[in-house]
């Protein structure tokens, strides 16, 4: 097959997988949690129904909102989709890697965060300001930790291209056992927990003012705009998890485009995501949320761990 056409097809499949499965992952975590807590829980597909219902509703905007509020939700979802086009999901085949790399991914996530925080400030209410303030404070620590953690891999692979990093780690099957890799993985996991708004950093199931961060950001948003933002948030979450799965633990990922390898890769990816869902659900059931001002220490630990990972890479080689 023509390589150009193959790339486009692969990108379409990967983007479709990330976009369509994104709401499901949260549903699975919720279902496992409900089981652990002896509840029946919501149906697995409830999140899709919520999204579909929200998408049909009209949006009520604050009278104080600027034109930015009309555009930003679309841009936030657009940014999430763009990141998907170069995230390696099934294969280390580069996808649209020419257009973006690790730094670009982090920058686009930053763009989503900036727009969300600005949206929260649009209505001029207290909750919006509170959530934006907390969100920025926490991600100011989480973002550099994320960057450093993936840099550890980028340096080993001599590249910041996501697909190339993944390929380089597949090529050295024992590389993952090095201390720097494991430290970076730990740091990355802390960042993922924080960035996806999970216990112990944030509680996705609450509207209690003392605790909420992500829910507070979208409190003043409604209708189809809310559908866009919720979907974008779940896509971002799945992209981060896919980065953990395919950069730090890249077993099973295909290195080419043969159908057999791609099928195995799909199975491996789904299995890894299920594993993550179990880990997250057990953590959420077993631990309590941290006090807000303990969280910076938690994230600071991630930052330090990833810095140690980087320097230990130097010292040990």
């Amino acid at each position, binding site marked *: 097959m023509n390589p150009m056409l193959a790339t486009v097809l692969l990108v379409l499949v990967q983007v479709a997988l990330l976009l369509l499965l994104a709401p499901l992952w949260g549903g699975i975590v919720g279902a496992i949690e409900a089981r652990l807590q002896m509840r029946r829980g919501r149906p697995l597909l409830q999140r899709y129904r919520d999204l579909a219902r929200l998408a049909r509703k009209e949006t009520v905007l*604050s009278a104080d909102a600027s034109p930015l509020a009309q555009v930003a939700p679309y841009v936030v979802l657009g940014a999430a989709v763009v990141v998907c086009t170069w995230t390696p999901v099934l294969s280390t085949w580069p996808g649209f890697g020419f257009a973006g790399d690790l730094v670009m991914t982090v920058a686009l996530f930053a763009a989503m965060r900036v727009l969300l925080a600005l949206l929260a400030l649009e209505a*001029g209410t207290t909750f919006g300001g509170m959530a934006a303030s907390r969100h*920025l404070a926490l991600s100011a620590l989480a973002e550099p930790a994320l960057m450093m953690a993936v840099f550890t891999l980028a340096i080993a692979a001599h590249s*910041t291209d996501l697909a190339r990093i993944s390929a380089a780690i597949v090529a050295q099957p024992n590389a993952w056992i090095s201390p720097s890799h494991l430290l970076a993985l730990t740091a990355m996991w802390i960042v993922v927990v924080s960035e996806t708004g999970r216990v112990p950093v944030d509680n996705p199931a609450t509207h209690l003012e003392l605790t909420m961060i992500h829910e507070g950001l979208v409190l003043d948003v409604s209708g189809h705009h809310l559908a866009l933002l919720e979907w974008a948030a779940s896509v971002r979450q799945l992209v981060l998890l896919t980065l953990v799965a395919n950069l730090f633990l890249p077993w099973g990922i295909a290195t080419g485009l043969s159908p057999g390898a791609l099928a195995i890769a799909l199975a491996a990816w789904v299995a890894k995501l299920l594993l993550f869902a179990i880990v997250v659900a057990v953590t959420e059931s077993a631990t309590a949320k941290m006090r807000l001002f303990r969280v910076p220490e938690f994230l600071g630990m991630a930052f330090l761990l990833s810095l140690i990972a980087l320097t230990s890479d130097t010292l040990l080689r």
Partner: protein
Amino acid sequence: VWLPAAHPEAPAPVSAMLSGVMVKAGLYGLLRFAWQMPGAPPEHWGTVLVLAGAATALTGALYATVETDAKRLLAWSTIKHAGLFALATGLAATLAAAGQPGIAGVALAAVFYHAIGHALAKALGFLAVGEAAHAAGSRNLEALGGLALRMPRVATAALTATLALCALPALSCFPGEWLTFQALILGYSSGAGQMRLLAPFAGAGLALASALALAAMVKLYGIGFLGRPRSEAAAQAHDATRAVTTTLFALAALVLAWGLAAPWLAQALRAPLAALLPGFDATTLTGGAGLTLVPARPGIASVAPAAAAALLVAAALLAFAWLRAVRGARGVRRAPSWSGGVPLEPRMEYSALGFTKPLRLVFMPVLRAERQVEVLEAGSPYFAKHVRYRTGVPAVYEQWLYRPFAQAVLWTSERMRRLQAGSLHLYLAYLLATLVALLLWAR
């Protein structure tokens, strides 16, 4: 360090010039000094520059987050970016000294890209914020707010500058930062001596500084322009005249163009880069038929800001079309903000000071913020009626950097004053003593 005190006092266009041009004049001096001084520069000065740059960037970003004066905030952000210049220059020098002209060229190209990208964005920022502050009668973010609805054109320009200064893709500060990170990674993998220890710390400092600058910029636009007006003057602000907004839009277009067209501009950097680093060809920074920016060596990484922006717009339009089809005629309705049933007042909004309070608490050991709570009128033992709360971020750098100097000068002059007793005889005696001393010395 004097920047945050000096910039805001000047009128907006002058601040824009100061920040856009004067800092670059310093950069030019640094480059001339580094490369074209006769004789080899002292060893390790590149390392010193990298570390000083990272520290400067962090300091600037941190103080920007806790600042509540709009123009001082922008000035602190200039310090953050000046730190990035120093870092990239030092990186280039270290790498050039280690015999890696290819990677040094990447770092140097980052300096050039960022110098122009930052100058454009910062000029736009100062002009737009200055215009807004003029219309609303205050530079203090606590007295602004709600300007996005009242002066939409100026606010659009300010938003562009804000997003650009966050180094978001497709805007003017992104190419420079991206190339700096690439140079750090390439320098690290090249294995040149001290680079292996230097790069992780410089990269961590830079990443932290960028994330903090982001919070500061959201505060500038979110508190200053969005929400509800926090003062009478801000509520009555009007958009600037056509001439002013045309200028702002032209600058905003340049900011966008510099971000999108970065790969094509490598051609223009060819001559200056070759002059500083013989044997480095800037056109190797462009790949993929001129669409992508690559760090001088194929197969490392590439970004295409224009392609990413096009993809983003396409995805956003698709989402719009999808929603349009699903929701039919149900569109967007306007309604007053809901705040739990009580009338919403500007006092209920988050203030500029409160907005970054979490960050201020996290970085308390560094900032050493002061805080003072005073109960003015106690109604009952548990509920005070009026409380005065005072807080401030003292200028730590002034205490530790300037005060010793200032005190030394004061101390010396105190001693010197005894010499000037005001007595004519004594002065004549001084003259005589000087004369004798000179005669002895000349002999």
